[in-house]
């Protein structure tokens, strides 16, 4: 039982860290509190699902396609929606635009699911992916644990190397620090912003592929986990990538363990989402600097 809980928490933490790092990246660069972020994950799910139905292979094989799909979607979203508003709209207006974007993406996926169901004759709601077992060092692990951990940590490592070891990554950090100064120094801020949206959406797309191994998914699954992502980012301090990764694992563990204790004291496990909502509210009310406030002086 404890082992199952641990596995569940780690997998969920991997997922949430991929999602929350993207959300905080676009929040840091373009200052959009993106309510459509969960829908990027949904798009990733449906890309992988369509491919696996068409080619009859395990969805893990189509991770790269969800990644590329996310890249394209992120680029499109930034170029079409947010670039024209750069420097023009207030923070809440950007938030509201992302609500509109959420409607567009979520209901487009609904329509896509309907069309797919009619044309291929497969279920497109309540999707579950079948997991594989992996033998490692004589032990058998659930494939989801191994693959999601490997992918999540590889991605986080690549993002770290990108931000600290490459010229473009350093430019991105400069833009986060001071957009007008970076622009004056010849950095193409628009391109950096587009890149941050591409990274955010592609990370979310990859995270999405892991979701149907855990829970049954629908076109609104991404939206329903949105507040958990926000809780992770808020707990991390809203201004720190490292903070949101740690926040993601803390939220994942407290949701998984919390739900276990809820069922122990006879409360419905359906209270589970309330754990992250309450965390979000408490952090904002009591200590808005979040985890990052522990090490950063800003």
């Amino acid at each position, binding site marked *: 039982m404890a082992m199952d809980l641990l596995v569940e928490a780690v997998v969920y933490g991997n997922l949430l860290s991929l999602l929350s790092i993207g959300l905080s990246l676009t929040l840091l660069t373009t200052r959009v509190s993106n309510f459509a972020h969960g829908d990027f994950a949904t798009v990733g799910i449906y890309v992988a699902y369509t491919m696996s139905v068409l080619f009859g292979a395990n969805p893990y094989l189509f991770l790269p396609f969800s990644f590329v799909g996310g890249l394209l979607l992120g680029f499109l979203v930034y170029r079409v929606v947010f670039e024209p508003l750069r420097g023009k709209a207030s923070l809440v207006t950007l938030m*509201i635009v992302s609500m509109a974007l959420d409607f567009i993406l979520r209901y487009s996926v609904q*329509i896509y699911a309907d069309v797919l169901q009619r044309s291929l004759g497969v279920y497109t709601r309540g999707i579950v992916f079948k997991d594989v077992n992996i033998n490692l060092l004589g032990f058998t692990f659930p494939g989801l644990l191994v693959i999601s951990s490997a992918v999540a940590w590889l991605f986080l490592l690549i993002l770290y190397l990108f931000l600290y070891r490459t010229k473009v990554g350093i430019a991105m950090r400069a833009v986060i620090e001071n957009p007008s100064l970076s622009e004056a120094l010849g950095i193409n801020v628009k391109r950096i912003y587009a890149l941050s949206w591409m990274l955010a959406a592609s990370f979310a797309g990859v995270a999405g592929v892991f979701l149907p191994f855990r829970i049954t998914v629908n076109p609104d699954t991404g939206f329903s986990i949105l507040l958990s992502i926000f809780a992770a980012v808020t707990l991390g301090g809203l201004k720190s990538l490292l903070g949101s990764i740690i926040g993601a694992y803390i939220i994942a563990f407290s949701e998984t363990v919390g739900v276990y204790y809820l069922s122990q004291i006879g409360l419905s496990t359906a209270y589970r989402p309330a754990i992250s909502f309450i965390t979000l509210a408490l952090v904002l009310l009591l200590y808005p600097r979040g985890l990052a406030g522990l090490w950063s002086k800003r």
Partner: protein
Amino acid sequence: MIVVDVVFFVLDLAVLYSVYVILASSLNLEYGEAGLPNFAKAAFFAVGAFSVGALSVRLGAVFLGMALEGDFKLNSLRWAMSVSQSVARNPFLGLSIFIATLIVAALVGSVLGVLASYPALRLREDYLGMLLIAFSETIRIVARNYDPLVGGTFGAGVVDFLAWAGSPSREILLLFLSVVVAAIIWIVYYRLSASPFGRALRAMRDNELATESLGRNIVKLRMMAMMIGSAMASVAGVLYAYYVGTVNPDDFTTSKTFLITLMVIIGGSGNPYGPLVGPAVYLAFDRLIQFTKQRLILPFDPNYLSYIVLGVVLIIVVDRHPGGIVPEKPTLTLPRELRSLLRQRRVEETWNRQ
């Protein structure tokens, strides 16, 4: 037969339009005029509906001296029917239930609104929006799982307080009632917006410090805006619950908040006419799609389209016509150039602030 169809079509449209006008007016007062992004709108809407769901049956039983035995979750629909049968013989009972639930909803809504105004003192506006969304979803999750309130996922039965009128005069009464309530609320909102109070709210939105230095109490202004706005949203919830006839917590997700917000921005935030235009735009698209649905065979459910259209319209409006379809008119005490200059400076400040 056609007459009945027309009555139901007009009823549906009129009630939904009234409910959306009230909700959009309340968000426009809070966000458009006072600058408070109250993204817990769905929750305040729900407060009204939950008051009806939780109280109409129980109050009816108290008035009738009826004993309610058994589980609320399993029996509320049945109880609602038996109370409605008594209401059919006793119009006064129906009206007392309606008025009592309306008062309770407005009171609970305004108290919660005052509570929700306190975080606004410390938080930046976008964080406030996030906090209120979390608050809203927490209320929904609790209502969904705490059965005695409104029957959890089963929903609660609602007494038909107009049962004495009989169809179709019942429908016509309901139609008039909702239109009259919406009209009263909108006129109150219009008068507030044009009053010194409304000017103070807009001043607070544009520059808090300056407003405070001119002797306005920011805390009180915020509290008043949230209190009035939340009470308005609760009244909308009451109308909606009596119209639908059941109350289900899953009707009040954050998507509802998104919908209302988009209507306000598309209609024109800060202008009292905006909340009349925004819901009209949405309902026009929605009904148009319903009509074409019957004539076209599409491989998907066309209801989804109205949300997509609304989203696209919002993005176009924000990009091309940021004031909305009817933009806010300048308050005549300051020249127009000065106002737009001030607003532009405010946007630049938020962008350059680290």
